[in-house]
């Protein structure tokens, strides 16, 4: 049993070594601010209570995925360039890597184990489902086409509204997206459409 865990760790480490260059090469367009980003801090789920933002069912580390490993936002938020909705990654997307990657330390392994549990429980309707706590929720009388903003500002437009998620151990709200002045100030600076019916219909 113990042997298996060791093998698992070696395997996942090997997978990381294999995967990392791939992930790096895909991150050529990352903003310069992130180029010298440090390894994400070591935190356990016990720390998440003291971090900003709501606690999530899994202590998912954007700072590790998007920061340390420089994965592109669109790898998981797959529809952001095509649709008004950014798309929440499917569990299958998570498992695509985490079938192999088991985590480098005990705190990571604990969270990845939760993910695997949700995945293996998914066939059983009586078991709880993974429910992320929503952080940004736009009022229902406003329509925000994500794809237009990604089209205009490039794939790294996300942090304009969502903040430097790549440095967030736990995601929190940086800007109040329901404050219309926040939208308008940007539209003013960029001299783009400020018609009411661009968003309100």
């Amino acid at each position, binding site marked *: 049993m113990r042997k298996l865990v060791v093998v698992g760790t070696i395997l996942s480490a090997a997978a990381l070594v294999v995967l990392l260059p791939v992930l790096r090469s895909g991150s050529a367009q990352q903003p310069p601010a992130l180029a010298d980003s440090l390894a994400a801090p070591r935190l356990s789920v016990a720390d998440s209570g003291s971090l900003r933002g*709501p*606690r999530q*069912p899994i202590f998912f580390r954007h700072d590790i995925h998007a920061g340390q490993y420089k994965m592109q936002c669109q790898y998981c938020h*797959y*529809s952001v360039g*095509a*649709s*008004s*909705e950014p*798309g*929440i*990654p*499917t*569990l*299958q*997307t998570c498992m695509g890597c985490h079938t192999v990657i088991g985590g480098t330390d005990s705190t990571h392994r604990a969270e990845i184990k939760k993910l695997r549990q949700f*995945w293996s429980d*998914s066939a059983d*309707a009586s078991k709880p*489902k*993974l*429910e*992320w*706590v*929503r952080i940004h*929720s736009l*009022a*229902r*009388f*406003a*329509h925000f*086409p*994500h*794809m*237009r903003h990604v*089209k205009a500002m490039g794939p790294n437009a996300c942090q304009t509204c969502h903040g430097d998620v790549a440095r967030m151990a736990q995601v929190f709200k940086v800007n109040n997206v329901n404050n219309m002045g926040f939208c308008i100030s940007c539209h003013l600076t960029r001299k783009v459409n*400020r*018609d*009411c*019916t*661009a968003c*309100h*219909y």
Partner: protein
Amino acid sequence: MTVRPVITRDQGSEDRDQGASPELSPLTADLSRRRFLTVLGVAGAGSAALSGCSTAKVEKLIPYLVQSEDQVPGIPTWYASTCTECSAGCGVHVKTREARAIKLEGNPEHPVNAGTLCQRGQAALQGLYNPGRIKGPLQKQRGAFQSLLWDEAIGRLAQQFQNARGKVAVISGAGPGSFDDLLAAWTQAQGGRLIRYQPFDRAPERAANLRVFGLDELPLYDFATARYIVSFGADFLETWGPVIEQQRGFAQSHGFNGKSMARHVYAGPRMDLTAMNADEWHPLLPGSEASLALGMAGVILGERTTAPQDANALAASLAAYTPEKVAQDTGLTPDAIRKLAREFVSAAPSLAVAGGIGAQHRGAVDLCAAVAILNYVAGNVGQTVRFGAGLPKPDGYAAMQQLIAAMNAGEVTAVLVHDANPLYALPRSARFAEAFAKLPFKASTSLFLDETAAACDLLLPAHHALERWDDLRPRAGVLGLMQPVMTPVFDTLAPGDVLLRAAQKTPDLKAQFPAPSFEAHLKQKWAELARSRGAADTEQFWRDALQHGGIFNGAVATPPAVRLVPTVPTVLTAPSFDGDGELILLPVPSSMYFDGRGANRPWLLENPDPVTKITWGSWAELNPETARRLDVREGEIIRVTSPHGSIDVPVYVYPGVRPDVVAIPLGLGHTEFGEYAKGLGVNPLDLLGAGSVEGFLPYVATRVSIATTLGFHKLAKTEGNPRQLGRHIAEAMPLAHAEQGYTVEESLKQVGEEEHAVNTAREAEAIAGFRASQVEKTKLGAYAEELPKWGMVIDLAKCTGCSACVTACYAENNIPWVGYDNVTRGREMSWMRIERYFEGGVEPGEPFAARVVPMLCQHCDNAPCEPVCPVYAAYHTADGLNGQVYNRCVGTRYCSNNCPYKVRYFNWFPFAKRAFQAPLDLQLNPDVTVRARGVMEKCTFCVQRIRGAQHQARLEDRPLADGDVRTACQQACPSGAIVFGNVKDPESRVVRAAEDHREYHVLGELNVRPSVTYLAKVQA
């Protein structure tokens, strides 16, 4: 903890529900303290965020497990399918968002509807999400329904049918297709009889064609090429035949094409929607129409030498129907009859049609035969009347009568009812209910607890057509496919699977029905079809058909050579009527409720009757003369009594009905059928006798007497005033003027009428000055940009007033229905409405006519609503829209008071809360805000479609092309009367359509400069 249908179960997407307004969300709606505590207890971690003084609820995002290949959040997925709301079999495209169907649109490739869809088709969604649907299998125990498992329910069906082997009957309303074939084989294997039952089945026409041509079938009528159309009571724009296809053809021939148009004459006792669109209406007594048809045929045969040779055999017998004799029968003058006949034959090809429920009296076969002869004599058979169409042949009323007798005699002991509601659709005097109640076992696959289902012992609720695999052969050469577009809303099952699983539970049927599921069965049938068509790859054949909604190039049998039966009888007997009351009862088929199946859809109940503009209830139409004689006024309840029963119904005084007739719409008066239909209105079938004539049920066969009661029921009409009162809202001009290229003003001058009060020179100067300043303003700010300016053209020569656009608008824009009480107070929210104005008919002998005009926000350039809004909620966008910002609106209603068109609608109550009660809320369009109480709303020119098209064009780095944006009303219109586009683009269709001498603006004299241009109606 929120009770949501299973749709989101395993595939919970980003549960954003933009469409639902905050007060609709299950968490905050009616959040009592007890419920709040329950939520806290269950939500656990979520409760932490709920604590404190914040009212914001915690929203959860439930990820998909596996990425669905055909669902991207925020992007609609379209499926091709087939509509089953009537037997026409139109093709539909189903728009789904986040795995739920939200809109139905016509399939442009489909030969029947060519991309458009009527109001009943649109409202199929309210069948899918109807709160009155049966939520799982039920069995009756001690008078009450108890739920059971599907396996038990199917086992019970199999067992009961096996016990009753040989004494089994199945009543089915399904059209021809693989399911119907399976049902026939299954019933036969049970030793039972299958009765294919459609209440509106056009049996008299088939009998007439058998009598005249020896062909027991229905032809297709080509309205598009006909240059002269005479309808003998056939409501071809409402319920008779494939109405969308007929309306498209009618708009093509009868719409003014710049040079000419077909003429349309209607002969029937009541001015229905079809007659409203006629250029000439002859209110004939029911039963006298056949004489007119034979008289016309006689004139043609007497004067024309080119009639088909074999028609001359008729000359002798038709000679009896001289114009003078016909004039006696019909009340028309002999000269008018001659003129009608001559015009009919000289305008080749012409078309005469007869049939429909409104002309289904005891002489209906005579009438249809006379019209068939008229068409033959005029040389229309093979031209505009085409046999060999392969339209379905239901079994008809006689088969139901035999079934009732068999049930009474104990020859049938077990019955399965599928897609039919005979308990409602048969006259009460047929005593079906009593015979049905005697049966030891009766089961139903109905989706709803309708009258028949309520009387059954076992309910096996079927999937809606949008939830199951199926196919439909509405006519030769057309094979429509249906596919499930979403997870079933409730615990229902495809009826095909019920049959197959029941067969598996019956030992001797096991081998005969080996298919594991109906889907597999269907695919196998299509593989056989593919092989018979010589397709190399059957899988590819199936996928192609699925993508296109079916195959529409199928082999059509060569039309049979149509010859007259040599001994065709032409002797007419005047149809008899039951009873000795003073008025003839005319049950009117409704274009909203059809045979009664539309009565549980609020969209159809709130969409006003195209003729009377009455919503939410029944009425009895009386001629003003009759009403005066009986001393009744609109809304007074009268008791209509026939030898078979009596009903109480409010009066609607209507000059478009003969003085000796009382007309009552069919389709309402349900005793079951869900909360919307139950107890609403009356059913005139209660007044009919059950006797059949040549195998069909004569609907117009009863004389009734009228007694006044003390009751009063305010009719929920949506019209303000039925007359134009000189306001020139719906303009029309004679064909002669249209041919000359007259403008509306010139035409009015010709007939001695001034269009508008002439502005004084000072006013004219002020208006000119204003216009110049407006032009200057368009060079400023955002208006100076190269933006499109949206505009619309509505051709009143094509618009028939059918109201398909109204329901399409409700579906697209999340418009709440408001119900009877609020409609009587003028609070309906109908962004798009059809205004109907009566002309003439006041003085005795004055011809009576009606005009329609679709009325929606005119998006005025100089909009009166905008400057009066204190909070700038109503304002003008740079692309020419009259914007309405819901979140800014504080509900002063100044804008509505200042709108001359009365197209702004106010949410007096949280209408949306009731209108979109679960599961109807699943239909909401996520791209459109659901408006809260206290907010003004109105037509937006489908701004969400405009923005959507702009987003798409930007993503593809291309400019917006003409035709990229189609409004919901334009998309639905079967006549193609609505054109929408960018009026700044000189090549756009909307600009070309507006370049017409018939163009005018409604209330243009107010100088509000509307963006909607109307083209005046032309009267041939």
